[in-house]
Protein backbone atom coordinates (compact mmCIF):
# COMPACT_ATOMS: atom_id res chain seq x y z
CA UNK A 1 0.00 0.00 0.00
CA UNK A 2 1.27 3.48 -0.78
CA UNK A 3 0.61 6.85 0.81
CA UNK A 4 2.52 10.11 1.27
CA UNK A 5 2.88 9.92 5.02
CA UNK A 6 2.45 7.35 7.75
CA UNK A 7 1.89 8.26 11.38
CA UNK A 8 2.84 5.59 13.91
CA UNK A 9 0.55 5.73 16.94
CA UNK A 10 -3.07 6.86 17.40
CA UNK A 11 -2.73 8.65 20.69
CA UNK A 12 -3.30 12.36 21.10
CA UNK A 13 0.01 13.26 19.40
CA UNK A 14 -0.48 11.05 16.35
CA UNK A 15 -4.08 12.23 15.94
CA UNK A 16 -3.10 15.90 16.25
CA UNK A 17 -0.57 15.28 13.49
CA UNK A 18 -3.21 13.50 11.40
CA UNK A 19 -5.48 16.52 11.65
CA UNK A 20 -2.66 18.87 10.62
CA UNK A 21 -1.68 16.68 7.66
CA UNK A 22 -5.33 16.55 6.56
CA UNK A 23 -5.52 20.36 6.73
CA UNK A 24 -2.51 20.45 4.41
CA UNK A 25 -4.14 17.90 2.08
CA UNK A 26 -1.41 15.34 2.68
CA UNK A 27 -2.73 11.81 2.18
CA UNK A 28 -1.71 9.64 5.08
CA UNK A 29 -2.61 6.79 7.37
CA UNK A 30 -2.30 6.34 11.13
CA UNK A 31 -1.06 2.90 12.17
CA UNK A 32 -2.02 1.78 15.66
CA UNK A 33 -0.82 -1.43 17.34
CA UNK A 34 -4.03 -1.66 19.39
CA UNK A 35 -6.94 0.73 19.51
CA UNK A 36 -7.16 4.51 19.55
CA UNK A 37 -5.74 5.77 22.88
CA UNK A 38 -4.25 2.33 23.46
CA UNK A 39 -1.76 3.21 26.21
CA UNK A 40 -4.44 5.12 28.10
CA UNK A 41 -6.68 2.04 27.89
CA UNK A 42 -4.18 -0.62 28.81
CA UNK A 43 -1.20 0.85 30.65
CA UNK A 44 -2.59 3.17 33.33
CA UNK A 45 -3.64 2.56 36.92
CA UNK A 46 -7.30 2.82 37.91
CA UNK A 47 -7.29 6.01 39.95
CA UNK A 48 -5.03 8.02 37.63
CA UNK A 49 -6.32 11.37 36.47
CA UNK A 50 -4.61 13.82 34.14
CA UNK A 51 -2.13 16.15 35.79
CA UNK A 52 -3.33 18.95 33.53
CA UNK A 53 -6.69 20.67 34.11
CA UNK A 54 -9.51 20.29 31.59
CA UNK A 55 -8.99 23.71 30.02
CA UNK A 56 -5.63 22.42 28.82
CA UNK A 57 -7.21 19.40 27.14
CA UNK A 58 -7.38 20.76 23.64
CA UNK A 59 -6.14 19.48 20.32
CA UNK A 60 -6.08 21.10 16.88
CA UNK A 61 -9.71 21.85 16.04
CA UNK A 62 -11.12 20.36 19.22
CA UNK A 63 -11.45 21.19 22.92
CA UNK A 64 -12.78 19.12 25.78
CA UNK A 65 -16.35 20.00 26.64
CA UNK A 66 -16.94 19.88 30.35
CA UNK A 67 -18.68 21.57 33.26
CA UNK A 68 -15.56 22.45 35.19
CA UNK A 69 -12.49 23.68 33.30
CA UNK A 70 -10.39 23.32 36.47
CA UNK A 71 -11.22 19.64 36.99
CA UNK A 72 -8.94 16.77 35.97
CA UNK A 73 -10.02 14.00 33.58
CA UNK A 74 -10.24 10.42 34.75
CA UNK A 75 -8.81 7.72 32.48
CA UNK A 76 -12.23 6.80 30.97
CA UNK A 77 -12.74 10.51 30.24
CA UNK A 78 -9.33 10.79 28.56
CA UNK A 79 -10.05 7.72 26.46
CA UNK A 80 -13.47 9.13 25.47
CA UNK A 81 -11.89 12.48 24.64
CA UNK A 82 -9.25 10.96 22.35
CA UNK A 83 -11.73 8.53 20.73
CA UNK A 84 -14.13 11.39 19.98
CA UNK A 85 -11.27 13.42 18.55
CA UNK A 86 -10.37 10.57 16.19
CA UNK A 87 -14.02 10.53 15.04
CA UNK A 88 -14.42 14.30 14.75
CA UNK A 89 -11.34 14.66 12.55
CA UNK A 90 -12.13 11.40 10.69
CA UNK A 91 -8.60 10.21 11.25
CA UNK A 92 -7.60 7.42 8.84
CA UNK A 93 -6.62 5.02 11.62
CA UNK A 94 -5.71 1.39 10.96
CA UNK A 95 -6.15 -0.28 14.33
CA UNK A 96 -4.61 -3.57 15.49
CA UNK A 97 -1.77 -2.98 13.07
CA UNK A 98 1.51 -3.50 14.83
CA UNK A 99 4.59 -2.13 13.14
CA UNK A 100 7.36 -4.72 12.93
CA UNK A 101 9.93 -2.69 11.00
CA UNK A 102 10.59 0.69 9.42
CA UNK A 103 13.27 0.79 6.73
CA UNK A 104 14.69 3.38 4.35
CA UNK A 105 14.59 2.75 0.64
CA UNK A 106 15.01 4.83 -2.54
CA UNK A 107 11.37 5.83 -2.37
CA UNK A 108 11.31 6.92 1.29
CA UNK A 109 10.28 4.45 3.93
CA UNK A 110 8.92 0.94 3.90
CA UNK A 111 6.84 0.01 6.91
CA UNK A 112 6.15 -3.62 7.67
CA UNK A 113 3.18 -4.38 9.89
CA UNK A 114 1.26 -7.40 11.07
CA UNK A 115 -1.36 -6.38 8.47
CA UNK A 116 0.71 -5.75 5.37
CA UNK A 117 3.34 -3.24 4.34
CA UNK A 118 3.18 0.46 3.54
CA UNK A 119 5.40 2.59 1.35
CA UNK A 120 5.56 6.28 2.19
CA UNK A 121 7.81 9.30 1.73
CA UNK A 122 7.41 10.70 5.21
CA UNK A 123 6.92 9.00 8.55
CA UNK A 124 5.93 10.45 11.92
CA UNK A 125 6.91 8.55 15.05
CA UNK A 126 4.14 9.23 17.58
CA UNK A 127 4.10 6.01 19.55
CA UNK A 128 4.81 7.75 22.82
CA UNK A 129 7.72 8.21 25.22
CA UNK A 130 6.51 5.73 27.81
CA UNK A 131 6.66 2.32 26.11
CA UNK A 132 9.13 0.56 28.40
CA UNK A 133 9.44 1.13 32.15
CA UNK A 134 12.92 1.98 33.42
CA UNK A 135 14.25 -0.28 36.12
CA UNK A 136 17.37 0.91 37.93
CA UNK A 137 20.68 -0.88 37.81
CA UNK A 138 21.01 -3.35 40.65
CA UNK A 139 17.31 -4.25 40.58
CA UNK A 140 18.13 -7.75 39.32
CA UNK A 141 19.90 -8.50 42.61
CA UNK A 142 16.68 -8.28 44.64
CA UNK A 143 15.76 -11.59 46.29
CA UNK A 144 13.14 -13.47 44.29
CA UNK A 145 10.63 -13.69 47.13
CA UNK A 146 9.90 -9.98 46.68
CA UNK A 147 7.05 -9.03 44.38
CA UNK A 148 8.19 -6.38 41.88
CA UNK A 149 6.10 -4.40 39.46
CA UNK A 150 6.14 -1.33 37.28
CA UNK A 151 3.45 1.36 36.97
CA UNK A 152 2.38 -0.26 33.68
CA UNK A 153 1.19 -3.38 35.49
CA UNK A 154 0.01 -1.61 38.64
CA UNK A 155 -3.77 -1.08 38.76
CA UNK A 156 -4.69 -0.68 42.43
CA UNK A 157 -3.45 -1.71 45.89
CA UNK A 158 -5.73 -4.79 45.97
CA UNK A 159 -3.39 -6.56 43.52
CA UNK A 160 -0.45 -6.25 45.95
CA UNK A 161 0.30 -8.87 48.57
CA UNK A 162 -0.09 -7.86 52.18
CA UNK A 163 2.98 -6.23 53.65
CA UNK A 164 5.23 -3.26 53.20
CA UNK A 165 5.92 -1.61 49.85
CA UNK A 166 9.06 0.10 48.64
CA UNK A 167 8.20 2.68 46.00
CA UNK A 168 11.30 3.71 44.06
CA UNK A 169 11.04 7.12 42.42
CA UNK A 170 9.52 10.38 43.63
CA UNK A 171 8.12 12.00 40.54
CA UNK A 172 4.42 12.22 39.86
CA UNK A 173 3.90 8.47 39.55
CA UNK A 174 5.96 7.49 42.58
CA UNK A 175 4.22 9.99 44.84
CA UNK A 176 0.75 9.06 43.66
CA UNK A 177 1.38 5.35 44.13
CA UNK A 178 3.03 5.90 47.53
CA UNK A 179 -0.04 7.86 48.59
CA UNK A 180 -2.54 5.32 47.30
CA UNK A 181 -0.69 2.26 48.59
CA UNK A 182 -0.17 3.82 52.02
CA UNK A 183 -3.87 4.71 52.16
CA UNK A 184 -4.66 1.02 51.61
CA UNK A 185 -3.13 0.25 55.01
CA UNK A 186 0.32 -0.90 53.89
CA UNK A 187 3.50 0.64 55.20
CA UNK A 188 5.37 2.48 52.47
CA UNK A 189 9.02 3.43 52.06
CA UNK A 190 9.67 5.95 49.30
CA UNK A 191 13.12 6.14 47.68
CA UNK A 192 13.65 9.73 46.58
CA UNK A 193 16.09 10.89 43.90
CA UNK A 194 16.01 14.17 42.04
CA UNK A 195 12.49 15.48 41.65
CA UNK A 196 10.46 18.53 40.72
CA UNK A 197 8.30 19.95 43.49
CA UNK A 198 5.41 22.33 42.85
CA UNK A 199 2.17 23.21 44.60
CA UNK A 200 -1.04 22.31 42.76
CA UNK A 201 -2.54 25.71 43.47
CA UNK A 202 -0.61 28.94 44.00
CA UNK A 203 -2.18 32.34 44.65
CA UNK A 204 -5.64 30.87 43.91
CA UNK A 205 -4.73 29.50 40.49
CA UNK A 206 -3.47 26.18 39.20
CA UNK A 207 0.33 26.19 38.93
CA UNK A 208 -0.02 25.18 35.27
CA UNK A 209 -2.22 28.24 34.69
CA UNK A 210 0.65 30.41 35.92
CA UNK A 211 3.23 28.51 33.87
CA UNK A 212 1.02 28.93 30.82
CA UNK A 213 0.33 32.64 31.48
CA UNK A 214 3.99 33.46 32.16
CA UNK A 215 4.99 31.76 28.92
CA UNK A 216 6.99 28.97 30.56
CA UNK A 217 5.04 26.19 28.82
CA UNK A 218 5.54 27.85 25.44
CA UNK A 219 9.30 28.20 25.85
CA UNK A 220 11.00 26.57 22.89
CA UNK A 221 13.97 24.24 22.64
CA UNK A 222 16.25 27.01 21.39
CA UNK A 223 15.33 29.36 24.25
CA UNK A 224 16.67 27.23 27.10
CA UNK A 225 20.30 27.03 28.23
CA UNK A 226 20.72 23.31 27.94
CA UNK A 227 18.03 21.43 26.02
CA UNK A 228 19.50 18.03 26.88
CA UNK A 229 19.06 18.77 30.54
CA UNK A 230 15.59 20.28 30.01
CA UNK A 231 14.48 17.11 28.23
CA UNK A 232 15.55 15.00 31.20
CA UNK A 233 13.69 16.97 33.86
CA UNK A 234 11.38 14.53 35.68
CA UNK A 235 7.62 15.02 35.69
CA UNK A 236 6.48 17.45 38.39
CA UNK A 237 5.04 16.10 41.63
CA UNK A 238 1.43 16.84 40.73
CA UNK A 239 -1.82 14.95 41.12
CA UNK A 240 -5.23 15.66 39.61
CA UNK A 241 -7.96 15.52 42.24
CA UNK A 242 -11.33 17.09 43.06
CA UNK A 243 -9.74 18.91 45.99
CA UNK A 244 -6.96 20.29 43.76
CA UNK A 245 -4.70 18.98 46.48
CA UNK A 246 -0.94 19.38 46.55
CA UNK A 247 0.97 16.12 46.72
CA UNK A 248 4.43 16.51 48.16
CA UNK A 249 6.95 14.71 50.33
CA UNK A 250 5.87 16.63 53.43
CA UNK A 251 2.29 15.44 52.99
CA UNK A 252 3.44 11.85 52.56
CA UNK A 253 5.75 12.06 55.60
CA UNK A 254 2.83 13.33 57.63
CA UNK A 255 0.76 10.30 56.58
CA UNK A 256 3.58 8.03 57.75
CA UNK A 257 5.40 7.29 54.51
CA UNK A 258 9.09 6.80 55.28
CA UNK A 259 11.55 8.67 53.05
CA UNK A 260 14.92 7.25 52.05
CA UNK A 261 17.51 8.33 49.47
CA UNK A 262 17.72 7.24 45.85
CA UNK A 263 17.81 3.47 45.38
CA UNK A 264 21.49 2.59 45.10
CA UNK A 265 21.36 -1.17 44.66
CA UNK A 266 21.35 -4.38 46.63
CA UNK A 267 24.34 -5.56 48.67
CA UNK A 268 24.07 -8.99 50.24
CA UNK A 269 20.51 -9.06 51.58
CA UNK A 270 20.19 -5.32 51.96
CA UNK A 271 18.68 -2.70 49.70
CA UNK A 272 20.90 0.37 49.78
CA UNK A 273 19.97 4.00 49.46
CA UNK A 274 22.02 7.09 48.69
CA UNK A 275 22.96 9.54 51.41
CA UNK A 276 21.95 12.42 49.15
CA UNK A 277 18.33 12.78 50.31
CA UNK A 278 18.96 16.17 51.94
CA UNK A 279 20.46 17.59 48.81
CA UNK A 280 17.86 16.34 46.33
CA UNK A 281 15.17 17.86 48.57
CA UNK A 282 17.12 21.13 48.89
CA UNK A 283 17.49 21.29 45.11
CA UNK A 284 13.75 20.75 44.60
CA UNK A 285 12.77 23.34 47.24
CA UNK A 286 15.09 25.96 45.74
CA UNK A 287 13.84 25.23 42.24
CA UNK A 288 10.21 25.46 43.37
CA UNK A 289 10.89 28.83 44.96
CA UNK A 290 12.49 30.08 41.75
CA UNK A 291 9.31 29.09 39.91
CA UNK A 292 7.15 30.90 42.49
CA UNK A 293 9.42 33.98 42.20
CA UNK A 294 8.84 33.94 38.45
CA UNK A 295 5.08 33.84 39.06
CA UNK A 296 5.26 36.68 41.59
CA UNK A 297 7.30 38.83 39.21
CA UNK A 298 4.80 38.15 36.43
CA UNK A 299 1.93 39.18 38.72
CA UNK A 300 3.69 42.47 39.52
CA UNK A 301 4.46 43.18 35.86
CA UNK A 302 0.87 42.54 34.84
CA UNK A 303 -0.62 44.35 37.77
CA UNK A 304 -2.92 41.47 38.70
CA UNK A 305 -4.71 42.44 41.88
CA UNK A 306 -7.40 39.79 42.12
CA UNK A 307 -5.09 36.95 43.05
CA UNK A 308 -4.19 35.42 46.39
CA UNK A 309 -1.24 36.55 48.49
CA UNK A 310 2.38 35.59 47.99
CA UNK A 311 3.09 32.35 49.79
CA UNK A 312 6.16 30.22 50.47
CA UNK A 313 5.77 26.59 51.44
CA UNK A 314 7.52 24.72 54.20
CA UNK A 315 10.88 23.29 53.14
CA UNK A 316 10.86 19.55 52.66
CA UNK A 317 11.28 17.93 56.05
CA UNK A 318 13.97 15.29 55.84
CA UNK A 319 14.71 13.00 58.77
CA UNK A 320 18.11 13.79 60.32
CA UNK A 321 19.52 10.36 59.49
CA UNK A 322 17.36 8.54 56.95
CA UNK A 323 18.24 4.83 56.75
CA UNK A 324 20.94 3.99 54.20
CA UNK A 325 19.92 0.36 53.92
CA UNK A 326 17.02 -1.93 54.66
CA UNK A 327 17.35 -5.60 55.50
CA UNK A 328 15.29 -7.42 52.89
CA UNK A 329 15.04 -10.52 55.10
CA UNK A 330 13.36 -8.51 57.86
CA UNK A 331 9.99 -8.67 56.10
CA UNK A 332 9.65 -4.90 56.18
CA UNK A 333 9.35 -4.89 52.40
CA UNK A 334 7.15 -7.35 50.52
CA UNK A 335 6.72 -5.50 47.21
CA UNK A 336 8.89 -3.14 45.19
CA UNK A 337 7.32 -0.75 42.68
CA UNK A 338 9.69 0.83 40.14
CA UNK A 339 8.37 4.31 39.48
CA UNK A 340 11.63 5.27 37.80
CA UNK A 341 10.36 6.55 34.49
CA UNK A 342 9.99 5.11 31.03
CA UNK A 343 11.72 5.09 27.70
CA UNK A 344 10.45 4.67 24.15
CA UNK A 345 10.62 1.38 22.27
CA UNK A 346 12.44 1.68 18.94
CA UNK A 347 13.15 -2.02 18.48
CA UNK A 348 11.22 -1.95 15.19
CA UNK A 349 13.16 1.00 13.80
CA UNK A 350 15.72 -0.17 11.24
CA UNK A 351 16.86 3.31 10.28
CA UNK A 352 20.22 4.41 11.74
CA UNK A 353 19.00 7.40 13.73
CA UNK A 354 19.74 6.29 17.30
CA UNK A 355 22.57 7.79 19.32
CA UNK A 356 24.79 5.70 21.60
CA UNK A 357 22.22 6.00 24.39
CA UNK A 358 19.45 4.65 22.16
CA UNK A 359 17.75 8.02 21.73
CA UNK A 360 16.63 9.35 18.38
CA UNK A 361 18.87 12.03 16.89
CA UNK A 362 16.62 14.93 16.03
CA UNK A 363 16.40 18.69 16.05
CA UNK A 364 13.13 19.63 17.72
CA UNK A 365 11.27 16.69 16.22
CA UNK A 366 12.91 16.78 12.77
CA UNK A 367 14.74 13.47 12.80
CA UNK A 368 18.23 13.02 11.37
CA UNK A 369 16.78 11.10 8.41
CA UNK A 370 15.00 13.09 5.69
CA UNK A 371 11.22 12.84 5.91
CA UNK A 372 11.17 11.37 9.41
CA UNK A 373 9.55 13.22 12.31
CA UNK A 374 9.09 12.66 16.01
CA UNK A 375 6.21 13.68 18.32
CA UNK A 376 5.24 13.55 21.96
CA UNK A 377 8.60 13.48 23.73
CA UNK A 378 9.45 15.66 26.70
CA UNK A 379 10.45 19.19 25.56
CA UNK A 380 10.55 18.06 21.93
CA UNK A 381 9.95 21.62 20.68
CA UNK A 382 8.44 23.31 23.71
CA UNK A 383 8.19 22.75 27.43
CA UNK A 384 4.56 21.67 26.87
CA UNK A 385 5.46 19.13 24.15
CA UNK A 386 4.60 16.10 26.27
CA UNK A 387 1.32 17.62 27.51
CA UNK A 388 -1.87 16.90 25.59
CA UNK A 389 -2.32 20.54 24.58
CA UNK A 390 1.35 20.72 23.61
CA UNK A 391 0.82 18.34 20.70
CA UNK A 392 -1.10 20.97 18.70
CA UNK A 393 1.66 23.52 18.16
CA UNK A 394 4.27 20.79 17.58
CA UNK A 395 2.04 19.08 15.01
CA UNK A 396 1.43 22.38 13.21
CA UNK A 397 5.17 23.17 13.03
CA UNK A 398 6.25 19.69 12.04
CA UNK A 399 3.47 19.21 9.49
CA UNK A 400 4.61 22.45 7.83
CA UNK A 401 8.13 21.07 7.69
CA UNK A 402 6.81 17.75 6.39
CA UNK A 403 4.80 19.51 3.68
CA UNK A 404 7.92 21.46 2.66
CA UNK A 405 9.86 18.22 2.48
CA UNK A 406 7.25 16.51 0.28
CA UNK A 407 7.06 19.53 -2.03
CA UNK A 408 10.85 19.80 -2.33
CA UNK A 409 11.37 16.13 -3.12
CA UNK A 410 8.34 15.47 -5.27
Amino acid at each position, binding site marked *: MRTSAVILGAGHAGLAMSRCLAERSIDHVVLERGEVANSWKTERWDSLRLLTPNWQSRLPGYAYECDDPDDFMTMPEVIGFIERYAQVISAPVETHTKVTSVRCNDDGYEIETTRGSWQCRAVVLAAGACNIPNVPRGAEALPSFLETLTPMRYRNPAQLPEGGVLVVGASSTGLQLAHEVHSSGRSVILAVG*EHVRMPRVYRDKDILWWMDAAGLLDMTWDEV*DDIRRARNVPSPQLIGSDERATLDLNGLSKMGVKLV*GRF*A*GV*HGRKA*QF*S*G*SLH*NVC*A*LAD*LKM*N*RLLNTVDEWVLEHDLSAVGPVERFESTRVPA*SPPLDIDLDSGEIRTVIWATGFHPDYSWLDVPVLD*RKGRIRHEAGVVDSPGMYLMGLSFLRRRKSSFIHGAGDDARDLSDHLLGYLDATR
Partner: protein
Amino acid sequence: MNDKKADNGVNVEALLGAREALRDAPEGAKFTWRASCKWISGTHSRSTVHGFFGLGKEQKHRTEFTFEADHPEVFSSDDNGATPVELVLAGLASCLTAGIASVAQHRGIQLRAVTATLEGGMDIQGILGIDEDVRTGFDGIKVTYEIDGDASKDDIKALVAQSQKRSSVFDIITNPTNVTVEVV
Protein backbone atom coordinates in the same frame (compact mmCIF):
# COMPACT_ATOMS: atom_id res chain seq x y z
CA MET B 1 25.93 31.69 30.40
CA ASN B 2 25.41 34.79 32.43
CA ASP B 3 26.44 38.17 31.06
CA LYS B 4 27.55 39.44 34.45
CA LYS B 5 31.30 39.77 34.75
CA ALA B 6 32.53 37.45 37.44
CA ASP B 7 36.05 36.17 37.84
CA ASN B 8 36.53 33.30 40.24
CA GLY B 9 39.56 32.04 38.34
CA VAL B 10 37.68 29.12 36.78
CA ASN B 11 37.93 28.58 33.03
CA VAL B 12 34.30 27.71 32.43
CA GLU B 13 34.60 28.03 28.66
CA ALA B 14 37.21 25.26 28.66
CA LEU B 15 34.99 23.06 30.84
CA LEU B 16 31.97 23.62 28.61
CA GLY B 17 34.12 22.97 25.55
CA ALA B 18 35.30 19.72 27.07
CA ARG B 19 31.71 18.73 27.83
CA GLU B 20 30.72 19.29 24.23
CA ALA B 21 33.79 17.49 22.84
CA LEU B 22 33.50 14.49 25.15
CA ARG B 23 29.80 14.06 24.43
CA ASP B 24 30.81 12.97 20.94
CA ALA B 25 33.96 11.12 22.08
CA PRO B 26 32.91 9.38 25.30
CA GLU B 27 36.04 7.20 25.36
CA GLY B 28 38.11 10.27 26.17
CA ALA B 29 35.96 10.85 29.25
CA LYS B 30 37.19 7.66 30.89
CA PHE B 31 39.71 8.60 33.57
CA THR B 32 41.66 6.49 36.04
CA TRP B 33 42.91 8.18 39.18
CA ARG B 34 45.79 6.67 41.10
CA ALA B 35 47.52 6.96 44.40
CA SER B 36 50.29 4.94 45.96
CA CYS B 37 51.07 4.60 49.61
CA LYS B 38 54.15 3.50 51.54
CA TRP B 39 54.22 2.43 55.14
CA ILE B 40 56.74 4.45 57.11
CA SER B 41 56.39 3.05 60.61
CA GLY B 42 53.69 2.48 63.17
CA THR B 43 50.48 3.98 61.84
CA HIS B 44 52.41 6.53 59.78
CA SER B 45 52.22 6.25 56.01
CA ARG B 46 52.93 8.50 53.05
CA SER B 47 50.73 8.58 49.98
CA THR B 48 51.78 10.06 46.68
CA VAL B 49 49.84 11.02 43.59
CA HIS B 50 51.44 11.90 40.29
CA GLY B 51 50.25 10.09 37.18
CA PHE B 52 46.70 9.49 36.04
CA PHE B 53 44.97 8.40 32.85
CA GLY B 54 42.49 10.54 30.92
CA LEU B 55 41.61 12.00 27.51
CA GLY B 56 42.89 8.78 26.01
CA LYS B 57 46.45 8.88 27.36
CA GLU B 58 48.71 8.95 30.40
CA GLN B 59 48.79 12.31 32.15
CA LYS B 60 50.85 13.76 34.99
CA HIS B 61 50.31 16.36 37.66
CA ARG B 62 52.72 19.29 37.40
CA THR B 63 54.60 17.73 40.29
CA GLU B 64 54.27 14.79 42.64
CA PHE B 65 52.10 15.52 45.66
CA THR B 66 52.48 13.72 48.97
CA PHE B 67 50.12 13.29 51.91
CA GLU B 68 51.23 12.22 55.34
CA ALA B 69 48.77 10.20 57.36
CA ASP B 70 48.99 8.94 60.90
CA HIS B 71 46.88 8.55 64.00
CA PRO B 72 46.83 11.12 66.81
CA GLU B 73 48.51 10.82 70.15
CA VAL B 74 45.28 9.86 71.91
CA PHE B 75 45.57 6.64 69.90
CA SER B 76 49.12 6.26 71.20
CA SER B 77 50.51 7.18 67.80
CA ASP B 78 53.09 9.77 66.81
CA ASP B 79 50.69 12.06 64.94
CA ASN B 80 52.86 12.61 61.88
CA GLY B 81 49.90 13.60 59.74
CA ALA B 82 46.17 13.82 59.36
CA THR B 83 44.12 10.75 60.13
CA PRO B 84 42.88 9.04 56.96
CA VAL B 85 39.27 9.96 57.81
CA GLU B 86 40.28 13.61 58.03
CA LEU B 87 41.76 13.27 54.55
CA VAL B 88 38.34 12.02 53.44
CA LEU B 89 36.74 15.15 54.91
CA ALA B 90 39.40 17.28 53.20
CA GLY B 91 38.64 15.53 49.90
CA LEU B 92 34.92 16.19 50.26
CA ALA B 93 35.48 19.84 51.21
CA SER B 94 37.86 20.48 48.31
CA CYS B 95 35.58 18.77 45.83
CA LEU B 96 32.49 20.72 46.91
CA THR B 97 34.42 23.99 47.05
CA ALA B 98 35.85 23.53 43.55
CA GLY B 99 32.32 22.83 42.38
CA ILE B 100 30.97 25.96 44.04
CA ALA B 101 33.59 28.13 42.33
CA SER B 102 32.88 26.54 38.95
CA VAL B 103 29.10 26.78 39.20
CA ALA B 104 29.39 30.36 40.47
CA GLN B 105 31.59 31.26 37.50
CA HIS B 106 29.11 29.67 35.11
CA ARG B 107 26.23 31.55 36.73
CA GLY B 108 28.10 34.86 36.78
CA ILE B 109 28.31 35.06 40.57
CA GLN B 110 31.43 36.74 41.95
CA LEU B 111 32.73 35.01 45.06
CA ARG B 112 34.81 36.85 47.66
CA ALA B 113 35.20 34.21 50.37
CA VAL B 114 34.17 30.59 50.71
CA THR B 115 34.84 28.69 53.92
CA ALA B 116 33.72 25.18 54.67
CA THR B 117 33.75 23.55 58.08
CA LEU B 118 33.31 19.80 58.21
CA GLU B 119 32.50 17.39 60.95
CA GLY B 120 32.29 13.64 60.67
CA GLY B 121 30.87 11.85 63.67
CA MET B 122 32.28 8.46 64.57
CA ASP B 123 31.85 6.02 67.39
CA ILE B 124 35.23 4.28 67.67
CA GLN B 125 33.61 1.26 69.30
CA GLY B 126 33.23 0.20 65.65
CA ILE B 127 36.96 0.38 64.82
CA LEU B 128 37.92 -1.24 68.08
CA GLY B 129 35.45 -4.08 67.58
CA ILE B 130 33.72 -3.41 70.90
CA ASP B 131 30.22 -3.35 69.49
CA GLU B 132 29.33 -5.14 66.25
CA ASP B 133 26.27 -2.93 65.81
CA VAL B 134 28.34 0.23 65.59
CA ARG B 135 29.43 1.26 62.14
CA THR B 136 33.18 1.55 61.54
CA GLY B 137 32.87 4.60 59.32
CA PHE B 138 31.26 7.96 59.87
CA ASP B 139 27.74 7.94 61.26
CA GLY B 140 27.19 11.15 59.35
CA ILE B 141 29.03 14.13 57.90
CA LYS B 142 28.01 17.72 58.43
CA VAL B 143 29.34 20.40 56.12
CA THR B 144 28.78 24.09 56.90
CA TYR B 145 29.54 26.73 54.30
CA GLU B 146 30.08 30.43 54.89
CA ILE B 147 30.02 32.16 51.54
CA ASP B 148 30.48 35.82 50.69
CA GLY B 149 29.47 36.50 47.11
CA ASP B 150 27.38 38.75 44.88
CA ALA B 151 24.15 36.78 45.03
CA SER B 152 21.02 36.30 47.10
CA LYS B 153 20.97 33.76 49.89
CA ASP B 154 18.84 31.39 47.77
CA ASP B 155 21.20 31.70 44.81
CA ILE B 156 24.13 30.88 47.09
CA LYS B 157 22.22 27.88 48.45
CA ALA B 158 21.53 26.80 44.88
CA LEU B 159 25.28 26.96 44.13
CA VAL B 160 26.00 24.68 47.04
CA ALA B 161 23.19 22.29 46.09
CA GLN B 162 24.29 22.11 42.45
CA SER B 163 27.88 21.55 43.54
CA GLN B 164 26.79 18.52 45.60
CA LYS B 165 24.90 17.17 42.61
CA ARG B 166 28.05 17.23 40.45
CA SER B 167 30.64 16.34 43.11
CA SER B 168 32.52 13.04 42.71
CA VAL B 169 33.52 12.83 46.34
CA PHE B 170 29.96 13.56 47.45
CA ASP B 171 28.83 10.73 45.18
CA ILE B 172 31.59 8.41 46.41
CA ILE B 173 30.61 9.03 50.03
CA THR B 174 26.84 8.94 49.63
CA ASN B 175 26.63 5.90 47.33
CA PRO B 176 28.09 2.40 47.61
CA THR B 177 31.24 1.65 45.61
CA ASN B 178 32.73 -1.78 44.96
CA VAL B 179 36.23 -1.95 46.37
CA THR B 180 38.60 -4.77 45.43
CA VAL B 181 41.79 -5.20 47.44
CA GLU B 182 44.37 -7.70 46.24
CA VAL B 183 47.74 -8.81 47.51
CA VAL B 184 50.36 -9.48 44.85
